[in-house]
């Protein structure tokens, strides 16, 4: 049943623009991040001080990681919320499949998509570094791989929460809004020790050479399990009375 659902999900996504938009954000984010890192290191910070929108301490992780997380958010919100926008909820809920299986299949599709996107983003980063690396301060392939992996894990850990919002509030935008709001809060309050353990902050921490704390990993696992249960519950209690 799960395999059939995955096939149907992939078929639905294949002709959508959303996976391509996500790819553009992840790969484009890596490329732009490298260019910014090259500018800040090669040209020099003093000359950049006067440029608007380019902080003097702009680093690779400040661009690539948030864009990748945004891409994963878009994919998750779309996969779980589009049925409500297209009016297709009837189709999925009147199919002879368990609603739990729908959630699991979609989670698997998104998780695979996130891993593929992360690899693409990391590949783009490695290629750009080969061309533009100018400073030993630039994050090397190992760090960018860790960040890509961290982003992927963070995205996968938090996707059930976004999926829950898409089902609970019946649409793509509420879920996207919630995800972005949480990310912003996590980034703004990232200086506080406890916040650093939140799944949303893990990728940035990893990209900056930090490590994931046990608390962070635990919270991610907890969020994933709790979010998945909440998503299943939300889908089971969808009430299409008219």
């Amino acid at each position: 049943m799960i395999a059939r659902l995955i096939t149907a999900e992939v078929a639905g996504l294949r002709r959508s623009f959303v996976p391509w938009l996500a790819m553009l954000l992840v790969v484009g984010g890596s490329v732009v991040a490298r260019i910014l890192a090259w500018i800040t290191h090669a040209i020099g910070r003093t000359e950049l001080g006067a440029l608007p929108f380019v902080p003097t301490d702009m680093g690779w992780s400040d661009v690539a990681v948030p864009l990748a997380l945004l891409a994963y958010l878009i994919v998750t919100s779309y996969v779980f919320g589009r049925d409500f926008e297209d009016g297709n909820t009837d189709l999925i809920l009147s199919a002879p499949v368990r609603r739990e299986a729908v959630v699991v299949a979609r989670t698997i599709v998104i998780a695979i998509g996130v891993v593929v996107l992360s690899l693409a983003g990391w590949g783009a980063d490695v290629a750009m570094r080969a061309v533009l690396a100018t400073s030993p301060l630039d994050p090397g392939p190992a760090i960018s791989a860790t960040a890509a992996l961290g982003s992927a894990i963070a995205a996968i850990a938090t996707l059930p929460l976004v999926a829950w919002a898409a089902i609970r509030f019946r649409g793509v935008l509420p879920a996207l809004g919630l995800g972005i709001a949480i990310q912003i809060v996590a980034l703004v309050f990232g200086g506080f020790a406890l916040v650093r353990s939140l799944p949303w902050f893990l990728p940035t921490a990893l990209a900056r050479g930090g490590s994931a704390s046990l608390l962070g990993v635990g919270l991610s696992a907890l969020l994933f399990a709790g979010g998945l249960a909440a998503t299943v519950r939300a889908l089971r209690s969808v009430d299409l009375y008219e």
Partner: protein
Amino acid sequence: MGSPALIEAVRLSKTKGRRIVLDDVTLSVARGDFYALVGEVGSGKTALLRALVGLAIPDTGSTRIMGEVAGPGAYRVFERVGYLPGDPPVRRGLSVLRDVEAGLSLAGVREPEAGRRALSLVGIEDLAEQPTHSLSDDHRRLLGMARAIAHSPELLVLDEPTRGLGGVERRRILDLLRTLSVEREITMIVATRVADGVVELATRVGVMRGGSLVAELDREGLRERGREHVEVVVSDPPRAALVLEERLGLTDFAVCQEHLIRIYVPGSRISEINSALVAEGIDVTRLTVNAGTLEGLLERLSSGEAAPR
């Protein structure tokens, strides 16, 4: 009747805010029935169908479908149930045929020609390779119908299958419903508007108004109630009945709710009836002739002009 119910609702009620969506609805559809559910827009037909298949959650009451309590746990029944929503959705990015086949795949049907055959039955086999997003509303409805019948269900739950269809398509769907009901003995519950032609095929008709099931009629009842008759609302029904029998020699009448008497006579006798009742001092507050068409009867029942029983 007599066969076990394939789908049933017991004392179903639902409110949304201050609006009563369903009001104490009890309904049972036995194997082989063709049950038409008629009512005006907003009468609760769609909500009832959705509750019956487990897509809507009632506040009180229960629904069973194919012997199981309707809801998320009864997902397997959809292997044997075809459902057409009121506004049939499409799977975007797929062709019409792939859309039907995607549904078949989820239902575990591996028969390669099932999708094409369903399209052919509803008359849109020519559109098989067309992308679903380019379909007109009519064709979306036909695609929805193809999806509902593709896996050869035992029970069809259809929400206005002929709504908005042109003459040819409408005729085709009505013929298809007749074939499925009579030849393949598929049980059906179909929400419809009175003029859509579906009630002509029905073995039973339920009339909904304001969230309530106000009347249920079988073929015999439809024929009976559909006859030309005079409806009269009087101050004293027992005395009026006596007058009708003794002074006018009428026996084919029924005393209904709320001082209403339905007299099965040609409309031309209306003034004679009025005069006789008034002469006996009985107040006549309403006197109407009903021409006696099935459509007319159901429209009057749906709008509340005619008394349910």
